[in-house]
C-alpha cells in the first residue's frame, strides 16, 4: 500500500514537472499584466499582429503537405512493395540513407535554389520540398508487403485498370498506415520552423512558429501576448493529439521497430 502511494506521488510529481510549463503558458495567455482574467491578449494578436493570416498559412501548408504525402508516399511505397522496377533495391536503400542525412546541410543550397527558381518567399517554397518523405514511403512499403496479393490479382482478372486497383482497392486497405503517416506529417509540418523561416521573408507567407520566433526579437517583450500567440500555435496540435493519441503513439513505436 505505501509502495503504491509512493509510486503515485512520484508519478504525479513528474506529471507536474512535465505539464507545468504548458500550464504556465495557458495561464499567462489569459491574464493581463495587472493579473486580471481577460481575452484581450488574443484580441490584440489577431487584430494588430495578423495572427489570422499566420494561422491560415500554417493550416494551408500543413494540410496540402499532408495530402501530398498520403498520395505520393502511397504510390511510391506501393511500387517498392509490389513492382519490380529497375534498381528497386537501390531506391529502397536511397530512401533509408536520405533518412540519415542531417537537414542542415541542404539549408544553403535550397535557399539558393529557391531564389534561382523564383520560388523564394512563396507557398511553393513551403510545400514542394516536403510533398514526399522517405519515412512515409518506408511505412507504406512495409504495410503493403503484409497485405495478401490475391485481392489485387482477382481485380486484375476482373479487368480493373491499374490505377483503379491502386486507389480503389489497395489504398483503402492501407488506411491504418496512411492515418499514422498523415498525423505525423501534419504534426511535423505544423511545428516546422527552420525552412519556413529561411525560405520566406514577407509577412504574407509567414507561418505561426516563424511569427512567434520573430515576435520575441522585436521591442520589449510582452509575455502575455507572446503566450497567447503560443496558445494559438499549440491548441490545434493538442487537439489532434487528443483525438489520435493511440495512433500517434503506435506510429512512433512502429517507425522505430519495423525496420
Amino acid at each position, binding site marked *: 500500500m505505501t509502495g503504491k502511494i509512493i*509510486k503515485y506521488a*512520484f*508519478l504525479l510529481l*513528474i*506529471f507536474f*514537472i*512535465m505539464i*507545468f*510549463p*504548458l500550464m*504556465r*503558458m495557458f495561464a*499567462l495567455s489569459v491574464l493581463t499584466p495587472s493579473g486580471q482574467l481577460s481575452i484581450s491578449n488574443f484580441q490584440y494578436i489577431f487584430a494588430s499582429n495578423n495572427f489570422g493570416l499566420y494561422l491560415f498559412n500554417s493550416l494551408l501548408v500543413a494540410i496540402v503537405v499532408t495530402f501530398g504525402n498520403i498520395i*505520393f508516399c502511397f*504510390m*511510391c511505397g*506501393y*511500387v*517498392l512493395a509490389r*513492382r519490380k*522496377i529497375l534498381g528497386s533495391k537501390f*531506391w529502397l536503400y536511397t*530512401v533509408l540513407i*536520405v533518412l540519415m*542525412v542531417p537537414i*542542415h*546541410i*541542404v*539549408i*544553403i*543550397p*535550397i535557399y539558393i*535554389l529557391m531564389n534561382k527558381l523564383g520560388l523564394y518567399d512563396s507557398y511553393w517554397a513551403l510545400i*514542394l*520540398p516536403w*510533398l*514526399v518523405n522517405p519515412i512515409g*514511403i518506408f511505412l507504406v512499403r512495409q504495410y503493403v508487403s503484409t497485405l495478401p496479393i490475391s485481392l489485387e490479382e482477382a481485380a486484375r482478372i476482373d479487368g480493373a485498370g*491499374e490505377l483503379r486497383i491502386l486507389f480503389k482497392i489497395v489504398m483503402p486497405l492501407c488506411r491504418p498506415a496512411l492515418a499514422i503517416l498523415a498525423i505525423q506529417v501534419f504534426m511535423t509540418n505544423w*511545428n516546422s*520552423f*527552420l525552412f519556413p523561416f*529561411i525560405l520566406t521573408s514577407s509577412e504574407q507567407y509567414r507561418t*505561426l*512558429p516563424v511569427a*512567434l*520566433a520573430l515576435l520575441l526579437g522585436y521591442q520589449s517583450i510582452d509575455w502575455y501576448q*507572446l*503566450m497567447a500567440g*503560443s496558445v494559438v500555435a*499549440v491548441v490545434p*496540435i*493538442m487537439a489532434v*493529439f487528443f483525438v489520435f*493519441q493511440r495512433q500517434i*503513439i503506435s506510429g*512512433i*513505436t512502429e517507425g*522505430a*521497430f519495423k525496420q
Partner: protein
Amino acid sequence: MKSNRGINGWLLFSPWILTFLIFWMFPLVYSFVISLTDYRLLDPTINWIGFSNYQKLFSDPDFILSLKNSFIFAIGTIPFTTIISLGLALLLNNQFRGRTFFRASYFMPSITSMVVIALIFSNLYARGGYIHLLAQLIGLNPPVNGFLLSQKTALASIMAMDIWMASGYYMLLFLGGLQTIPTELYEAARLSGASRWQQFRHITLPMLKPVTLFIIVINSIKSFQVFIEIFVMTKGGPLNSTFTGVYFVYETGLRQFNFGYASAAAYILFAIIGIVSIIQFKALQTKWQA
C-alpha cells in the same frame, strides 16, 4: 500488359525521384561544390579555392567554439535523456490505473513546437520567472539577470530544457522496446530465483539494446543540429556561450551570405555526425555482443 505495368511503376515512383533529385541530391552535391569556392551572395566573381575553406575553418576560433559547444550539448544531454526516458518507461510499463493518462501527459512536450517550448522557457528562466524564483527559493543563487543572460548558465539551461522535452518521446520508444520482450523470460528468471535487479540487469537491459542504440544515435544526430532553441532563446550569446555548429552555418551562410565558407562548415558537421554515429554503432555493438 507486362510492359505497361512497368511504365506505370516508374510513373508512380516519379514524385519521389523528382523531389529526391531536386531537393536532396542536387543540394547535397551543390553544397559540396560551392564549399570549394569563395561564393558570396554579393560577389559576382566565383573562384575555385580547393579545400582552403576547410583549412580556414579549422583555425577559425568561432567555428572551433561552435563545435565545442555542440559536443558539450551532445555529451551533456544524451546520458540524461536516455536514463530518464528509460526510467519513465520502466515506471509506466506495468498495468495500473491511470497509465494512459500519465503516458500521454509525459509525452505532451514532444508534440509542442520547439519555438513555443523555447518561448515558454525563456519566460521561466528570465529574471523573476518561475524557475528563477524557485532557484532563489532553494538558495541556489541564480544569475541576477536570469539564466539565459549569463555565460555560465545559458547553455546548460537550454540543455536542461532539451532533456525535459525529449524524455517523453524516448520514453515511448523504450516502452515499445519493453513490450517486445517475451514475458516467459521473466517467468523463467523468477522460477530460478532471480531478484528484480538481476532480471533488469540480465533480461531487460540486454533485450533493450537495439532501441537504446537507436535512441543514442538519433539523439546525437539531433544534438548536432540544435538550432531553433538557440535562435529563439539566446541567438548564440551571451558572449558566444551558446554558439553551436548549425548556428554557425546559419550565421555565416544566411546572415553574412558567405555561401562557400558556410557550406564547408556544414560538410564538416555532416562528417562529424557520420563519424560519431558509426563509432556509436561499432562501440555499442561489440560491447553488447561480448
